[in-house]
Each structure stands twice: as structure tokens, then as C-alpha cells.
């Protein structure tokens, strides 16, 4: 297979919303992962998470990672959407969709991408506690959408 994979990477302000389905020629497996903000962190209830990126480095590193993973697992397509700013508990902050000819590479690509994301990509989150503690001096300003930097 020597097709160039279709790669889409976006940072969006606030929660990640439902996305369209995949329509990739030759696809045999689509695996979709959504990261959702847990309502409890370290045993304490949280209201939200404040996500922060370091642009443009974050987008560039995410895009490079997506291409490396897509090449290694011979994916047909990959879509990455990650939040910046405030995401309330229960809402999605991260969407990863991969499409491949077979399920094995698609599943392995999901696992490897997330492992690398948590190790290498400059993205941070800070809890906003439900008891009312504010982010204070570290309040992360909401950032505009950064579509199209790939």
C-alpha cells in the first residue's frame, strides 16, 4: 500500500463535539477513541479541566506524531482533535479516529498514539475543583480554534 494517508489535526477551544463518520476508500476498520473528563480526580470531585497548549509547537508536534504513526501502521486516515481551554466533567476533550485496511494496525495505532501523546506532546491540564477553587493565577485563557495549521 503506497497511498498517502489522510491526516487531520486540530486544536479546538472547549469540548470536542461529535464528529462525522469516516468515508475512506478501501477501509476495513475504523477505531475511534474519545477521552472524556472524569468527574473525580485524585478522589476529589472536579467541575472541569483547563487544557493548555503551547502553540504553534503543540500543533506541529501533534501533526508530526500523526504522520509517524500513520506511516508505521500503514493507516488510510487519522483524525486528531484536542481541546484547549475549559472542558466540563463528562465532556470529551480528545478525539482520535483511525482508519485502516485491517483492525490490528488500527487498534495498535490508537494505543501507540495515546502513549506518545502523553509522553511527548506539550499539552497540559489543570483541574478546576468542584468546591469552588478557581484556577487563580494559573487560569488558562481560552484559545481560539487553530484549524488548518497542519
Amino acid at each position, binding site marked *: 500500500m503506497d497511498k498517502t494517508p489522510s491526516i487531520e489535526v486540530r486544536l479546538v477551544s472547549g469540548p470536542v463535539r461529535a464528529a462525522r463518520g469516516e468515508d475512506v476508500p478501501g477501509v476495513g476498520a475504523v477505531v475511534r477513541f474519545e477521552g472524556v473528563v472524569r468527574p473525580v480526580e485524585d478522589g476529589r470531585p472536579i467541575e472541569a479541566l483547563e487544557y493548555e497548549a503551547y502553540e504553534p*509547537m503543540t500543533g506541529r508536534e501533534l501533526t508530526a506524531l500523526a504522520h509517524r504513526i500513520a506511516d508505521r501502521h500503514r493507516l488510510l486516515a487519522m483524525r486528531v482533535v484536542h481541546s484547549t481551554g475549559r472542558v466540563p466533567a463528562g465532556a470529551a476533550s480528545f478525539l482520535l479516529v483511525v482508519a485502516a485496511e485491517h483492525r490490528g494496525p488500527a487498534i495498535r495505532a490508537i494505543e501507540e498514539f495515546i502513549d506518545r501523546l502523553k509522553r511527548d506532546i506539550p499539552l*497540559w491540564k489543570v483541574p478546576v475543583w468542584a468546591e469552588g477553587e478557581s484556577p487563580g493565577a494559573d487560569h488558562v485563557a481560552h484559545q481560539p480554534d487553530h484549524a488548518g495549521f497542519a
Partner: protein
Amino acid sequence: MTLRVKLFGPQARLAGRREIAVELPGPAPTCAELRDALARAAERLAPSLAASRFAVNQHYVRDDHPLREQDEIALIGMISGG
């Protein structure tokens, strides 16, 4: 020279600021020297520094990378995307 280091997320919260200025001697101190100086300048950051990396002008660099006063330096640690 004075180097300014950007802080993010939990490390910014630990330090209580978004940027920290550090004085280092010599014409081209390295990131390793900056790491040691940061531990002295902001003790609450010290436990997280060994597992942190530096980005200079928006690119990851190694610990032996020489620094200039005009560099944009970012401390990339305690990352937690996803």
C-alpha cells in the same frame, strides 16, 4: 545573562507564575545548567525538573544545547494530554 523560561499547566501553578527569569553566568550556558538554576530559583519545581524537557524557539532540545539571551525557552514538564 538573564534567561526567561515559560511555564505551563501544573508547573506554572506550582511556581505561581507563567514565566521565571534566571541569571546564569557565561556566554552560552546549557539547558542542564538552566535546569539546576531553576531548581534553586523555584524549589517547588525541583521534583518535576528531572522528567522535564526544554523547548528552545519552539523545538525540543537536548540538555547540552547552548542558550542565548534572546531565546524563547519553555519548560515542558508534567504534560498530560488526552
